[in-house]
């Protein structure tokens, strides 16, 4: 018996901007000051959204909320590498990606406040609503990409999901489809090290999540998910490949700084020391160090960015809270293209109820 090696694989890691704000010019994307500014604005807006959402939740003004703190570089860096005509198929923690694309924050608030009217996606945005059942959205991205290919739409589809999501069949099935059909899709795995309480090492025995693409015949890379330049660069390259019909899996290696959601208590399953270690790698202060060092802006200007972001967010909250009561008709209106006779009857019943 003779053993021959049939295939060998490796998994690459990309970091451009280190924890001290130092840049590795060999791997940097083309960085215009406008792009850096845009990335910073988006991350700060995302962080401001998060802080406000958490505060509102504590006051009972918002539902259970899953903060994205610490993941802003992964969300903004990837979203900004897309064109307006490209699709985002999200999970549920990527508010920063929405905001980076100019999505109205008041709609996000309405949704997280439990108002269905926040789900009405503005026409100009090619994004699906939040997908709560983990991993189930990934095959949708593949189908959208298939349609784009068949209809020659020149669209790229990026789908977000977590480390936990990579354990489900939907993930593997979607990856396999994309490999077989060579589709313009980017699998953006936000590895924030936890799926609620389950640490990444217990989610999979694989050394990296990026390598899960190998079995599907798809290229992949792991990037420093707290480095917005690496996130942007890797996505940009994946977009280029996608336009040629090649799918990519990107593992954004980052950390969930907050609790899983406001119903969770992360201190039950992870140490304060670990959290403190990751706090030093904060994506926003990292970019700030870089920008201040390069004199792209000064401290004062940076404070203004924060102030503007917080103002934008509090305006959005005010708007969302001023929306008023949803008419009862509205909860029936979208069940079918036309209301069925039975639904008309039930609506009458519902109307008559005292509120």
């Amino acid at each position, binding site marked *: 018996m003779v053993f021959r090696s049939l295939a060998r694989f490796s998994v690459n890691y990309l970091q451009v901007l280190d924890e001290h704000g130092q840049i590795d010019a060999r791997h940097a994307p083309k960085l215009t000051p406008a792009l850096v500014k845009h990335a910073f604005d988006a991350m700060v807006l995302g962080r401001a959204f998060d802080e406000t959402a958490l505060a509102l939740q504590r006051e009972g003004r918002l539902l259970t909320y899953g903060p994205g703190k610490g993941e802003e570089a992964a969300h903004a860096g990837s979203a900004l590498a897309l064109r307006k005509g490209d699709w985002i198929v999200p999970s549920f923690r990527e508010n920063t990606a929405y905001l980076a694309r100019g999505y109205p924050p008041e709609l996000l608030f309405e949704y997280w406040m439990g108002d*269905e009217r926040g789900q009405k996606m503005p026409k100009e945005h090619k994004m699906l609503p939040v997908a*709560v059942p983990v991993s189930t959205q990934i095959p949708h991205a593949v189908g959208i990409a298939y349609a784009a290919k068949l209809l020659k739409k020149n669209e790229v589809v990026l789908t977000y999901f977590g480390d936990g999501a990579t354990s489900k069949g939907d993930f593997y099935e979607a990856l396999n489809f994309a490999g077989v059909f060579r589709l313009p899709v980017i699998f953006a795995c936000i590895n924030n090290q936890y799926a*609620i309480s389950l640490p990444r090492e*217990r989610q999979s025995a694989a050394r990296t999540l990026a390598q899960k693409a190998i079995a599907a015949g798809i290229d992949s890379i792991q990037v420093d998910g707290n480095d917005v330049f690496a996130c942007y660069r890797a996505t940009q390259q994946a977009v280029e490949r996608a336009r040629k019909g090649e799918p990519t899996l990107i593992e954004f290696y980052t950390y969930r700084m907050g609790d899983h959601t406001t119903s969770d208590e992360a201190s039950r399953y992870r140490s304060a020391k670990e959290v403190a270690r990751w706090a030093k790698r904060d994506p926003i202060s990292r970019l700030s160090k870089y920008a201040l060092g390069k004199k792209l802006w000064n401290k004062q200007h940076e404070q203004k960015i924060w102030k503007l972001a917080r103002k934008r967010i509090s305006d959005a909250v005010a708007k969302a809270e001023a929306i008023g009561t*949803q008419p009862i008709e*509205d909860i029936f209106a979208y069940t079918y293209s036309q209301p069925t006779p039975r639904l008309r009857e039930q609506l009458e019943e519902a109307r008559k109820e005292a509120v």
Partner: protein
Amino acid sequence: MAVMNMVDALNSALDNELERDPRVVVLGEDVGRDGGVFRVTQSLLKKYGELRVVDTPLAESAIVGASLGMSLNGLKPVAEVQFDGFTYATFDQLFSHVARMRTRTRGRFTAPLVVRFPYGGLVRALEHHSESPEAFFCHFPGLKVVAPSSPYEAKGLLIAAIRDPDPVIFMEPKRLYRAIKEDVPETPYIIPLGEARVVQEGSDVTIVSYGSMLQSCLEAVKLVAGAASCEVIDLRTLTPWDERTVIDSVGKTGRLVIVHEAPRNCGLGGEIAATIQQKCFYKLSAPIARVTSWDIITPLPKMETRHFPSVSRIAKAIIETATLQ
């Protein structure tokens, strides 16, 4: 005896059974270190170790499929699915395999496993966290389905489910997890599956409900106390449901109101109504009423109270049914 809420009572049931029977295994997402997102499995990992209290990867289909395998080879798995809305991913395993194993192997292999999950709305939860999927499970032959309505009930029924030779879907009304406290024995006891409970006797109208809606029914009954004497039945087990108890009651009252949180279309209410009209036709003095949520996708929390049966919606149906001449 100890005063327990439903979470405590369920935890006590699991603790008792893990202790009593070394074949019992608890598995699911976050059930170990975190003690479950509702803390139902709190402290069990420490007590029984990670081979018997298993934090699984995030994969509902594999949790149930692997539970079947465990049950085929000598274990008694009690699987947790974290929320009602994520049980849909288990349908293939449940319907294609778990429910049929006894039939397909002519009794050689069986599936004595339990799948537990929190269900139901009115807790201001996110999308997919307020579902009442019981009708799917009841519709499928081979599965037993249970929905307790109080801490005491929850413990006795869960122990019965774990000891049952058939697969049992155990639906825990999350709205009641911490809402009621009552005396519950710390030692094991059983409430047999398939037996309903007459919670309150009455003569004018029978109310049949279960799980999360039982408390709302009791409140409604209080509201209408001056106008109608109500007999309230807690079904407890939804498959096989206790026809005898309902038939006896309707035989007495001649009137029936069925209340559930799930949508109306093809809901359990339809099955109960059809059975009762057939078996009690000559005893009925009014059409059987169903109080349910509407046949729409569960709205987000701001509108959920307009969707799920309210106490006043139930009270209105009771009065209409009880007073119809």
